[in-house]
């Protein structure tokens, strides 16, 4: 038995807090995903071409971390309003799996290719964009199933 009763959660008892958590969630995911895609565009030879991919990773590093930290923090708050519902939700399970994959990918292969671009760079960039679109799509679909 879960000893936690979601009806006692302040987010379920205040008109403002839940949508506000969602707004911070969306803004911070935009910050982190926008910064990652900026590097992807550079690896595809697009976007801010005057700066190297390596330098763009350095420029965006802190902001990706801040965005991920806030997105996951607010995500946990949203999750806490109805944990059982989320745990049993297919799109949500997929979202968590692809998010974990995305974070691992970003700090391993994606990073090393950005630091020393090879012929594989465009493929790595396209995979990265696909990976990061996925948690957004899964997040929307988790509310529609």
């Amino acid at each position, binding site marked *: 038995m879960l000893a936690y009763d979601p009806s006692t959660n302040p987010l379920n008892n205040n008109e403002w807090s839940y949508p*506000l958590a969602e*707004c911070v969630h*969306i803004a911070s995911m*935009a910050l982190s995903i926008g910064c990652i895609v900026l590097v992807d*565009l550079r690896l595809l030879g697009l976007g801010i*071409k005057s700066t190297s991919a390596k330098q763009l990773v350095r420029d965006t590093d802190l902001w990706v971390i801040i965005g991920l930290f806030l997105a996951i923090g607010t995500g946990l708050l949203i999750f806490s309003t109805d944990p059982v519902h989320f745990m049993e939700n297919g799109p949500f399970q997929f979202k968590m799996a692809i998010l974990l994959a995305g974070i691992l990918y970003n700090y391993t292969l994606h990073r090393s290719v950005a630091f020393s671009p090879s012929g594989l760079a465009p493929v790595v960039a396209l995979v990265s964009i696909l990976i990061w679109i996925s948690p957004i799509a899964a997040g929307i*679909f988790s509310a529609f199933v």
Partner: protein
Amino acid sequence: MSIAEAAHALQQTGWATDLRESALAYPIILVIHLVCIAIFGGMIFVTNLRLLNVAFREASVADIVASLRPWKHFGFVVMVTCGILLGSSKAVDYYANPYFIAKMTLLALTGVHALAFRKSVYRNPAPPSADTARLAAILSLVLWFSIMSLGRWIAYYEAPKQ
């Protein structure tokens, strides 16, 4: 024709009805809308971080603004197209929703913002003054965060019972 009648007529068109009643089309368009927020909203963040002089300092403001401009324009068109589709399918609810009205008002203000800082910042080939750049960035961040938030609040508004 009153606004209410126009909204009703719009919502009753075949495609708006199909969209509203579709189990897949509506969430898919919403996903595209959100992906645009992530990628192109992220670019707005990036531009503003540069204007605030806290990141991308090795590139000039003019360079960052110019390299991201076509992407932001593209994203804006896709985002607005999705928004029009989503809004039309629920036009009767939306036109009377105060959060929707506020969102459209702020969206119009982003045009005023772009024009107001056009010469001094966004089309300035020389580095803009630090104060002007900071003001433009802060206003942009406030405007876009508010627009995104109002979009979320539209969904939570319940019209008073008639």
